[in-house]
């Protein structure tokens, strides 16, 4: 009797694992895509960049520069 190395169950499991993997990749792509679109819709990044966690003096217009 021939030995079946690959049981049908393993094929099904493999298909499921690949399916779950693809779903996770799709989920990451959606979250990344949404993030990019939402951030770009905010408009000029300079308007809010300085409020990101730490103040960055180099992007703040020098005090009195416009006067």
């Amino acid at each position, binding site marked *: 009797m021939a030995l079946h190395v690959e049981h049908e169950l393993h094929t*099904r499991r493999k*298909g*499921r694992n690949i*399916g779950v993997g693809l779903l996770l990749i799709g989920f990451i792509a959606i979250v990344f895509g*949404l993030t990019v*679109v939402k951030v770009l819709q905010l408009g000029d990044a300079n308007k809010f960049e300085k409020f990101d966690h730490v103040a960055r003096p180099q992007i703040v217009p020098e005090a009195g520069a416009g006067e």
Partner: protein
Amino acid sequence: MSDLSVSEATYEASMGDYFALLKPRVMSLVVFTALVGLLVAPVPVHPFIGFVAILCVAVGAGASGALNMWWDADIDAKMKRTVGRPIPSGRVQPGEALGIGLALSGFAIVLLALAANFLAAFLLAFTILFYAVIYSMWLKRATPQNIVIGGAAGAFPPMIGWAVATGGVSVESVLMFALIFMWTPPHFWALALFVKSDYGDAGIPMLTETHGRDTTRNYILVYTLLLVPVAVGLGFTSIGGLFYTTVAVLMNAWFLKGAYDIWRRTDVDCDADKHRVEIKVFKISLYYLFAHFGALLVEAVLRLYGIGGW
């Protein structure tokens, strides 16, 4: 010991079995009407946000399908049409279907709220609740009017699409809802007249069995008459126009003629020609819905070129 056998006490479902839980054919209609609702709205939507929103509606519809299969597993096992579904055939465990249904519902609602707005997410949540709880758990086994009220679940998608774009509800989106809502009863009852169903064996009250086939014919005509003003009226809103109204008038005349033909018939006529008219009207009802929503889409494209609308 040389025993290498694999225990098959519990069948392990494949990806396809899980996908079948989501009722893909129902999903296609939901996606189409939601997409039309989104595209005909006067506010443009970023293509990626539109894609994610429609995906959420599709996943939400699939989730409610899984919840429906979980709840109805007992009656699905008794009917020929449904006995091959994943749960009654033993390929998916009921608990798995419940878990998938709840998880996908939560995923779709939260993602829609983040991608679009809270109103669209609320409408999606309400649709899932309506289909899974009000229709599946309550109405389906309680009243022969089950598909009339339950049809609301299938009517919400264009409203959700509209809400994704505009963030609101308007006369246009309510009329798109009403169009599907009023179309569902004559569509399903035409089917019920010619399909030899075993709903009775499963204990589901269907109009054809509780009130008889003559009453069902009357109901088909009445609901089709009520459907006409809704379908044609949509043509006089901001998303309608000459093209849509022409299509609506022609399709309604065709559907109404079919409903009238059914109304005039008796069971003897049905047996004589093997439900030829009922089958024809059922097919017309499918063309009817696709023609209306297709025409709305054409109007939206025409408006881009300045020739749509009134």
